[in-house]
């Protein structure tokens, strides 16, 4: 089977302005950050993002002006920052369009898309303003096929009229970009640890790009097929990008980087600070290798490398950092 391996910069260039996409990972783990930085360097505009609980991957894209609309449940780095600073400011300033869902409903939307059905029924959302209210008008929805015609639809079960469910509409994106531990050149993917909604996000996308810590031989992944969750023919491009999720964690590879996260959140609270961060760590460097040098190089990375017995760094200093 032909190789699907391409350089990161070439993969990022596949995403045009106005594209719909989802990014793998969850708050503080396995975001395709190297890919995100490339999109910012390419100055992509008017992207439509779909996610459940993204973190700084979205926040920096929003701050860099790449994003027109988001459909989401949450955007923050949890204990590192309870709301993404650029997302908060963009929302409060009216610089971004959005629609609020919950994690379960967004994941169910990806799942419906992945399964090839138009909707999924849920017992969540009933009684909430997530169901009762919408961020986008009917006109805005009708005008743009990238967003579902209806936000949600409540119905009675035909099998028992006392049963009420909410139908959530399927998502289909142009792209899904995942960052994983291992992949083969021909697109077999191994995710270690929590899978989040990466599988469903991949399977509801037209084009799937996987960045990985390591390209491995086919036999090594075929020997345990129970752990390869994405059919290989659904993966279109594979990019080897070691440390590709920094400053976020990758189970069994490295931990999150509390110092860099603190730096980001410190800077991103103000427009000027954010621009400084962008200039220093994204626009001012040309490649991910240069980025890794900018954040502290081998010494910093070594301090984050996972202890194989834990899959993370048990001695990592996470609080009371004085730089």
């Amino acid at each position, binding site marked *: 089977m032909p190789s699907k391996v391409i350089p990161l910069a070439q993969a990022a260039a596949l995403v045009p302005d106005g594209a719909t996409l989802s990014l793998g990972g969850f708050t503080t783990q396995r975001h395709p950050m190297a890919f995100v930085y490339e999109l910012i360097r390419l100055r992509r505009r008017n992207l439509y993002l779909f996610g459940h609980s993204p973190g700084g991957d979205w926040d920096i894209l929003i701050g860099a002006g790449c994003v027109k609309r988001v459909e989401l449940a949450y955007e923050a780095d949890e204990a590192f920052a309870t709301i993404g600073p650029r997302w908060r400011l963009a929302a409060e300033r009216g610089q971004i369009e959005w629609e609020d869902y919950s994690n379960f409903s967004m994941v169910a939307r990806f799942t419906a898309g992945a399964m090839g059905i138009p909707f999924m029924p849920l017992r969540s959302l009933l009684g909430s*303003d997530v169901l009762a209210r919408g961020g986008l008008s009917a006109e805005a929805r009708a005008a743009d096929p990238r967003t579902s015609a209806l936000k949600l639809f409540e119905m009675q079960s035909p099998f028992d009229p006392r049963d009420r469910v909410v139908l959530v509409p399927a998502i289909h994106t142009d792209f899904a970009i995942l960052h994983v531990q291992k992949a083969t050149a021909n697109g077999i993917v191994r995710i270690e640890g929590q899978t989040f909604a990466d599988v469903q996000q991949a399977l509801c996308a037209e084009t799937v790009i996987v960045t990985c810590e390591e390209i491995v031989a086919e036999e090594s992944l075929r020997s345990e097929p129970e752990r390869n969750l994405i059919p290989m023919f659904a993966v279109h491009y594979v990019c080897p990008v070691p440390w590709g999720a920094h400053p976020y964690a990758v189970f069994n590879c490295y931990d999150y980087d509390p110092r860099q996260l603190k730096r980001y959140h410190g800077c991103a609270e103000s427009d000027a600070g954010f621009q400084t961060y962008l200039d220093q760590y994204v626009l001012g460097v040309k490649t991910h290798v240069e980025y890794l040098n900018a954040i502290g190089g081998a010494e910093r990375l070594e301090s984050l490398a996972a202890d194989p017995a834990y899959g993370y760094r048990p001695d990592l200093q996470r609080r009371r950092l004085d730089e």
Partner: protein
Amino acid sequence: MSDYTLTELMAVTAAHEIQEGEVVFAGTGLPMLGAMLAQRTHAPGCCIIFEAGTVASQLAHLPMSVGDPRAMRGAATAAGLSEVFSYVLQAGRVDVGFLSGAQIDRYGNINSTSIGLDPGHPQVRFSGSGGACDIACLARRTVIIALHEKRRFPDKIHYVTSPGWLEGGESRERAGLVRGGPDVVVTTKGVMRFRPDTKAMYLASYHPGLTALDVAQDTGFPLDVSEAVQTPSPDPQELRILREVVDPERVFRK
């Protein structure tokens, strides 16, 4: 107060809401402290679940997110959000879920989305639901953790991110929700519960150093304090485990 902090008191109080053998859907922060403390004290068989995909973790280090690699420690199952939300939460297998928010009303409805009457033009924007709305709808009962300030307990919240007892009485059931509802609110000032019939919040206990009236005055709706007693102080053994075993790094402990 004394030889423990407010955060420690709240963590211990939250831990007491978890019974042995229960399935606990925990979020980042105080709920993790409470769940891990319960597992190390009176409820060693409680099963800690994180929505990002882990079931029955045996935590060695506090996660800083529900998707933290630390959540993998000793897990019996690791999968993704879909498996946890559908096969565990929606299927009715979660005994207790934890919630927090920026605004909470007398029926335990929670706003964690935005301040301002039009959520499309927020004065202050928060992170949004995350899994909170789903936990509020689908756990068998929920424990709410909150800072206690008058503006955070208003007469009417601006957005119902996470449905509590809605308008009280049987309105939750009428909305089509099949189970659950808030059981208790643990705040920086006291512990509140809900009347079985009206589903209105009442003060069950006020924290040491405060009076029932103090709590009522810092609440934006009328709060029945007639049955309130003082919140029990943490047991020294619990405090020791909280400090030495659960959170020696002081990740969440203040």
